[in-house]
């Protein structure tokens, strides 16, 4: 029997991504748990030497997409609210409520790309692999996501953080 890779070191990052993706700690950890269970069940399909982290994120993406497909009807209302014109005052209120609100308003496919690249620091080609789309699609989604975030967060000073990258 070959040695099984240890998944625990990937847990913190899977949880971070899931938290940002779903915006909800319980939903996020359920998603992580489902991902781990699927990973253990399918571990024989993983190629030793290939990127285990990317593979785990791929599994999570597939599970997330399935969830959205099931939930979609309930979320239509929120999607519509997105396109309402927003006054300057409301914009500021949104900025103050911080990045969580803006993320929640992004379409899921854009949110995934923004998070994989901007938070999880996947390369564009790696993100494309995780999402099962061409790299060009990753680029166009990233571009739309960042512009949309920019509109939603307009008015907020771009850099008010001590973090540097």
């Amino acid at each position, binding site marked *: 029997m070959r040695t099984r890779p*240890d*998944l*625990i*070191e990937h*847990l*913190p*990052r899977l*949880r*971070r991504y899931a*938290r*940002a993706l779903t915006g909800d700690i319980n939903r996020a*950890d*359920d998603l*992580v*748990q489902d991902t*781990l*269970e699927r990973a*253990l*069940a399918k571990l024989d399909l993983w190629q030793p030497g290939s990127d285990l982290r990317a593979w785990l994120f791929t599994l999570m993406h597939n599970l997330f997409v399935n969830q959205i497909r099931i939930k979609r009807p309930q979320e239509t209302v929120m999607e519509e609210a997105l396109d309402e014109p927003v006054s300057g005052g409301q914009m500021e209120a949104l900025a103050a409520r*911080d*990045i*969580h609100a803006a993320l929640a308003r992004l379409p899921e496919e854009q949110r995934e790309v*923004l*998070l994989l*690249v*901007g*938070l999880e*620091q996947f*390369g*564009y080609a790696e993100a494309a692999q995780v999402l099962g789309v061409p790299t060009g699609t990753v*680029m166009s989604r*990233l*571009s739309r996501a*960042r*512009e949309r*975030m*920019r509109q939603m*967060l307009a008015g*907020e*000073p*771009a*850099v*008010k*953080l*001590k*973090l*540097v*990258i």
Partner: protein
Amino acid sequence: MTDVHEHELHAYVDGTLPEARRLEVEAWLAAHPADAARVQDWIGQNQSLHAAFDSVLNEPLPLNLVRATRRPALPVPFKAMAATLAMLVTGLIGYAIGLGSPGQGPAPVYLARDAAIAHAVFSPEARHPVEVDAAHADHLVAWLSKRVGTQLQAPDFSAQGFELLGGRLLTGETGPVAQFMYQDKIERRVTLYVRRAVADNKETTFRHATENGVDVFYWIDGDFGYALSGQIGRQAIQKLADAAYAQLVTR
């Protein structure tokens, strides 16, 4: 200068441009304020994402998730039960991943164990082991100092062959924790873990612990606990710990 494409602006933000092109894009941005403003906002977005979600990395891991990394898929009723269990305290993570038993020994033992866990979680990361890299060492030290609540210093291990990679902010039982990471030429890594000591900690001289193969040298100085962790052999890590101690301990 050739025109800069939209995707290159993103690549600039994400740090994936070759150096020569990066400089050209920088020059382009200096001459194109509208693009520069967008790029600045995008960088701000990345920073906001890290500020909002990086704390998740050091949250105590829920017991059901730790178990899920180790066992075949659980039957549904058990899964439901496991999901209702309370969040795991940090000590139990150590237990779950085999780093000794919780609930025993004086507080500094927790320091060693928690440092070893943080080392085990973050040092294998190939692409982004740190939140803030060493190129921004001044910012790194100032930022971590502010969050941890004391003037920190990243010790210099160049004489021992280790260079600063950077650092990250973690959360621990006693508040924020700073972790500095170093790497040598053959990419072996050591981490220095600094946090506020629990109230009744006595100052200690050096102590050594081995936690699941990770050597930890730790000490308390004033209100703060320090722990240096690595898997480079006890002698080697002790030399580094000696150097750190000499540089850090309050004069």
